[in-house]
């Protein structure tokens, strides 16, 4: 199982602040993305790369092949708009 923290617009779109994804770990970022798209088919487009960013252990991942274990803190959010 992989737990995913969800922020901002995506939290509203998916209707969850925390998602427990029933998938085997370790998994790669693109596999996590596909599992999310399967779980939320109506939001598949909003979950595409560029629209939904993924952070692993509080660091933004720029690699769709990065590996996620069940010990990692995983977060999902839209492009950032601070300042």
């Amino acid at each position, binding site marked *: 199982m992989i737990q995913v923290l969800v922020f901002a617009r995506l939290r509203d779109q998916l209707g969850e602040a925390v998602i427990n994804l029933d998938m085997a770990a370790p998994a790669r970022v693109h596999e996590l993305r596909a599992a999310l798209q399967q779980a939320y088919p109506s939001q598949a487009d909003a979950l595409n790369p560029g629209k939904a960013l993924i952070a692993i252990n*509080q*660091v933004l991942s720029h690699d769709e092949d990065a590996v996620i274990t069940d010990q990692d803190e995983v977060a999902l959010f839209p*492009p950032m708009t601070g*300042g």
Partner: protein
Amino acid sequence: MTLQPPADSILVQSDDFDVASEYQQLCTNNPDDGAVVFFVGRVRDLNDGDQVQQLELQHYPGMTEKALGSIVADARQRWQLGRVRLIHRVGPMNVEDQIVFVGVSSPHRGNAFDAAAFIMDFLKSRAPFWKKERILDGQGQTQSERWVEARDSDQQALQRWQADS
């Protein structure tokens, strides 16, 4: 004797901040630095043609502090800096409220100007903050809420620094 303030101060808070006190913290007992540059970001009343009534800043506690620390560390690698002070507010804010403070000191002004701009540019799209605004749309009759979209110009601002290095 007065204790010297720490070199970096990075705060994420809901409270407002006092620019005069931040400036003083950049200067007090700091004879090394001849230049102090600071920037204050404020809530505007107009965004994408609509009248903004309120702004809500959300963030990712934990990652926010980490990302800001890493941006400041990158700035220190590129320029000779004395002190760096950074405050980003979260929560609900009204038009004209202060959102963000970035202040840097350096022996010379070039470094201070560049480092302050660099920190702001990266903070806008590399630190996990998101803005939601309540607007009066159309003829100012109806209220609605919307998430602020990331801008291409913010990404282009980052490329400027990448091209430099």
